[in-house]
C-alpha cells in the first residue's frame, strides 16, 4: 500500500513538471547578507520571473566565514543545479576552483581578472564562467567631485587595505585624479571603528573626501559625515545608499539593476548560451543621488544642472 502511494506521488510529480515545462535549479552562494548583495540576488530572481522562466533558488550564505564559503561549494555540487549564481568575489573563487562543468555566473565582483575568474574581460577563456563586474566608473566619480568642488586640488580617501575591491578602486582613483591634475591623500583603516580617526587625519590634508565602495568604511560612514560636517569638508561617495546617510552625492551602480542585467545573462545561459563565449558585462545605467542638506552642512552649493540631473534628491 505504501509503495503504491509512493509510486502515485512520484508519478504525479513527474506529470506536473512535464506539464509545467522544465524547472531549472539555480544555486546561489553569497559571502554575507548585505543590502547591496541581497538586491543583486533579488534582481536576478525578478528578471527570471519576468521572462517566465520556472526555477527554484537554493540560497547559501557563508556569514562571512571563508571555511563555510568553501563548504557551500560541496552543498551546491550535491544539489546538481543547472546554474550557479555566485555573488561577490569569495564565493565565485571557491566555485571556480571546484565546479568545472556547471555554468557559473558571478555578479558584484569588482575585479574578475585579478580574482582569477576570467582570463580577460572580453573573453572569459572558454571556461564555464562569466558574469558582471561592479567596478566603480572612477572617471565619473572624479568628474562628480570636480563638479561639486571645482577648486579642489587634493582628494582624501578612506579605505580598508584589507578589502579586495578597495585596492583596485584606489589605483583607479589615483589614475583618474592624475589625468585632471589632482592628487590623492590616503587614510587606511583595518576595521570600522577606525573611520572617525581616519577622517580626522584627513582634515587639513585635502579639499574633498571621497569614500568608495568599501564595505568596512561604508558600514561606519556616519563618523566620516560628522567629521566632514564639523570641518566643512565636502564628502562624496561611491554608493547611493550613503547619500541618504549624510554624504553629498554619488553617481553609482544600482545593485538591483545590476541583478536584473545579471538575470539576463543567467536566462541566456539557461536557454543554451555558452558562458565561455560571453564577455564580462558592466552596468552602464548609473544613478545620481544628491543630498542638499548635507551639501549645505559641508559648505558647498550644488550646481543647479547637477540637481536637475539627479535621479533622487534628498532635501
Amino acid at each position: 500500500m505504501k509503495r503504491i502511494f509512493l509510486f502515485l506521488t512520484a508519478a504525479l510529480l513527474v506529470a506536473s513538471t512535464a506539464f509545467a515545462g522544465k524547472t531549472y535549479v539555480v544555486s546561489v552562494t553569497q559571502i554575507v547578507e548585505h543590502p547591496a548583495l541581497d538586491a543583486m540576488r533579488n534582481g536576478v530572481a525578478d528578471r527570471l520571473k519576468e521572462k517566465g522562466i520556472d526555477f527554484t533558488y537554493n540560497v547559501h550564505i557563508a556569514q562571512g566565514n571563508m571555511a563555510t564559503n568553501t563548504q557551500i561549494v560541496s552543498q551546491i555540487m550535491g544539489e546538481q543545479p543547472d546554474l550557479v549564481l555566485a555573488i561577490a568575489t569569495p564565493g565565485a573563487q571557491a566555485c571556480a576552483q571546484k565546479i568545472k562543468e556547471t555554468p557559473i555566473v558571478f555578479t558584484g565582483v569588482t575585479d574578475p581578472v585579478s580574482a582569477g575568474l576570467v582570463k580577460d574581460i572580453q573573453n572569459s577563456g572558454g571556461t564555464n564562467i562569466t558574469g558582471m563586474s561592479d567596478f566603480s566608473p572612477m572617471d565619473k566619480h572624479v568628474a562628480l567631485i570636480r563638479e561639486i568642488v571645482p577648486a579642489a586640488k587634493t582628494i582624501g580617501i578612506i579605505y580598508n587595505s584589507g578589502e579586495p575591491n578597495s585596492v583596485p578602486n584606489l589605483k583607479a582613483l589615483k589614475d583618474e585624479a592624475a589625468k585632471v591634475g589632482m592628487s590623492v591623500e590616503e587614510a587606511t583603516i583595518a576595521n570600522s571603528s577606525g573611520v572617525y580617526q581616519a577622517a580626522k587625519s584627513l582634515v587639513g590634508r585635502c579639499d574633498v573626501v571621497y569614500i568608495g565602495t568599501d564595505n568596512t568604511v561604508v558600514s561606519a560612514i556616519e563618523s566620516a559625515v560628522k567629521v566632514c560636517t564639523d570641518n566643512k569638508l565636502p564628502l562624496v561617495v561611491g554608493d547611493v545608499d550613503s547619500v541618504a546617510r549624510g554624504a553629498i552625492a554619488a553617481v553609482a551602480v544600482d545593485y538591483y539593476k545590476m541583478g536584473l542585467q545579471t538575470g539576463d545573462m543567467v536566462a541566456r545561459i539557461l536557454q543554451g548560451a555558452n558562458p565561455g563565449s560571453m564577455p564580462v558585462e558592466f552596468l552602464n545605467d548609473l544613478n545620481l543621488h544628491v543630498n542638499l542638506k548635507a551639501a549645505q552642512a559641508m559648505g558647498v552649493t550644488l550646481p543647479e544642472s547637477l540637481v536637475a540631473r539627479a535621479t533622487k534628491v534628498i532635501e
Partner: protein
Amino acid sequence: MTLYAFFGALEQGFAYGLMVIGVYLTFRVLDFPDLTVDGSLPLGAAVSAVAITAGYSPLVAVFMACGAGFAAGMVTGILNTKFKILHLLASILTMIALYSINLRIMGRPNMALLGQETVVDWFTRFSGLLPQHASPVLFAIICFLAVGVLIWFLHTELGLAFLATGDNMQMITSQGVNTDSVIIFGVGLSNALVATSGALVAQNQGAADVNMGVGTIIAGLASVIIGETVFGDKTIGRALIAALLGSVLYRIAIALALGLKLGSFAITPSDLNLITAILVVFALVMPKMKRKFLAGRSK
C-alpha cells in the same frame, strides 16, 4: 545531506585538522589560550600563495608556510615568556600584527590561485580519484601522518617536558627544565601546524584571503571540545585523534545545518552562528550531564 556535501564536510574537517591539533596543543596541553591562530592561518595561506605564484612547487610552498607559522608562534611565546606579557594579550598582539604582515606579503588582500598547480591537483592525478574524493583523502593522510609524528614526539624527553609544562609548571621548573623555551617552542609548533593548514586550505579553495582567519579560534575550540566529548581524551594519542575527528564532526554539523529544512521551518543561513554556539555549549555541558546522570543512577 547529499554525498557531495558529506565529502565536502570531510574535506573541510581534515583541511582544518592540523589547525585543530595546533589549537589542542596550546589550549589543552600548554594551557595557553592562543589567538595567534586567527593570524597564522592566513599567514600560511599568504606565504604559500606568494611562493606558488613565484614559481615554487606547491609542496615547497607548504613547507615555507609551516616555517612562517613557527616563527609567528615563537613571537607570541617570546612576548609572553621574555617580556612577561599575559598570554592572551601576547597572542592578540601577534594576531593584529600579522594582519598587516599578511597584506605586505601578498601585496593585496586577495591572491588568486585559480589555474595554478596545487598539491590537490598533484594528488588527484597521482591517485586517479575523483576531485571531490581526492582532497579529503589527501588531507586525511596528511593529518594522520602529523598525528603519528606528534605522538612519537610527545614521548621523547622534550615532548614529556612539553606535556608537563602545561600540567604543573612549578614542578617541571624544579626538575631543571627551562619552561620558557618549552613554551616558545610549543606555541611555535602549534602555529606551524595552523599555518600548514592555512596553506592547504588556500590551495584547496583557489585563493588566499587576508580575512580568511576570522573565527579560526572559535572553529578550533569548538572542534577540540566536540572531539573530547565524543571520543574522550584518556591518553595523549587518543586526545589528538579525538581533536582531529572533532574537526570533522564540527564540519559535518555545519553541513547539516546548511541543508536543514523541517517542513515550512527552514534554518536560514543567518542562524549559522547561533547553531555553532549551541553546538559548543552542548558539547561543553554534555559530559557534566552524563556524570550527573550516572551518579544519580548509582544511588
